[in-house]
């Protein structure tokens, strides 16, 4: 089995030390870092996502795999020139204003990084203006919103309205999620998508981000 296939297999097992060792081996075999990243680590996380969707594995397995992926990623990061880490795109994430729940949002961020995206996590209690301003200044093409209260969900509509008002709806796509959020609500407020869980969120972002 070639090295990158071994990386994929070790990643799926959640074996971070083996992923790191194999990543180092791949580098020593002069495989380009970008190839190791795309065809090893990101490919491994994509396989994890597929198995999760088929219910062959579950959330804890996914997180162990992500942790293993990061072990390999930590070896590759210094090899890219500052600011030139390959990225499929930038995503601005946050929990909306009035809300402090962040676990789901954190898991989405972890999975998006595992899929090769640069994630700008604004944390909790984030205003609509800050979401949109940050996306604009960072050149992000996706805003991801999380809310876990019916009383904070309306802030999502404010973000959608702000994107509309600033004529950014084509440039910046909006994906929303959280326990009380539904696909119907997403459609009603003009969001581009609803993410049921972190793995689904990656799938949706992959679909929304233009191929580079």
């Amino acid at each position, binding site marked *: 089995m070639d090295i990158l296939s071994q990386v994929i297999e070790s990643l799926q097992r*959640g074996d971070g030390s083996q992923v790191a060792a194999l990543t180092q081996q791949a580098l020593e075999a002069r495989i380009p870092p970008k190839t190791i990243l795309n065809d090893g680590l990101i490919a491994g996380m994509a396989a994890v996502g597929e198995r999760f969707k088929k219910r062959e594995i*579950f*959330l*804890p*397995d996914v*997180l*162990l795999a*992500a*942790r293993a992926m*990061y072990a390999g990623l930590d070896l590759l990061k210094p090899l890219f020139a500052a600011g030139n880490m390959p990225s499929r795109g930038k995503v601005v994430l946050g929990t909306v204003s*009035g*809300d*402090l*729940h*962040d*676990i789901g949002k*954190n*898991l989405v961020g*972890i999975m998006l990084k595992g899929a090769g995206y640069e994630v700008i996590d604004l944390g909790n209690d984030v205003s609509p203006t800050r979401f949109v301003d940050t996306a604009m200044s960072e050149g992000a093409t996706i805003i991801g919103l999380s809310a876990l*209260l*019916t*009383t*904070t969900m309306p802030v999502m509509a404010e973000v959608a309205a702000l994107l509309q008002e600033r004529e950014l709806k084509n440039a910046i796509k909006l994906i929303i999620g959280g*326990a*009380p959020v*539904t696909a119907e609500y997403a459609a009603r407020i003009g969001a581009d998508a609803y993410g049921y869980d972190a793995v689904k969120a990656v799938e949706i972002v992959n679909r929304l981000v233009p191929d580079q």
Partner: protein
Amino acid sequence: MREIIDIPISAVTPPATAILVAQGVPGDLAYRPDLVMASESACRFFSTLVAPRGILAEIGKDDFSRIFAGSGLNTPAAILEVIYPQADALALVAVTSGPQISEKITALFAAGDFVLGSLLDTAASEGTDRASRYMETYYHHHLTAHGRLSHSPTVLCYSPGYCGWHISAQRGLFQALSPEKIGITLRESFLMDPLKSVSGVLVAGPPGIHVVTELFPYCGECRAQFCRSRLQDKTDQ
């Protein structure tokens, strides 16, 4: 009756396997040793950080009806509207696992230890639910030990934000119960702080009053669906 209760840590600490089940791992799977170890670590963290407390205050149906109605935002078919009038006794309740758990979860994620952070978050949610069930049992004991009721009631907790009862009803609930006395505050968005807290009403009555057979408009969007299983758990005890 109005009481503040220090809940035993042993009563709220979930077993490691319960954390994995709560994260979606089927209960009949042979768990990976590394996952079991991680869950056990989460349980140990939980038991050292949790500070479970509860507050309970009995309330009459007329007074509760005002709290239940809140600002008039309940779904027309809120199930509690049918249940509480049939109760033998009602008590407002709030429980918390304390602030340190949430602080630790945040710190773990910030440090990149998201596996343990996620498991501890689930342990804390499970633990807070167990604290709520402890209060159900506590109130049950109070009602039966003091001979208040001639029969053994089933006591279940119902919380604003679920099953058609609007979350804004927490405003009236907090005014009547004062959970600030056990360290729980309510934000403008009706978010409780600490996050791992539960508020609601304990409804004591014959098991039949809690039986849910219909499907309501909000049932389709419910991911928890514990309304039926928790009654079964009570029946099995």
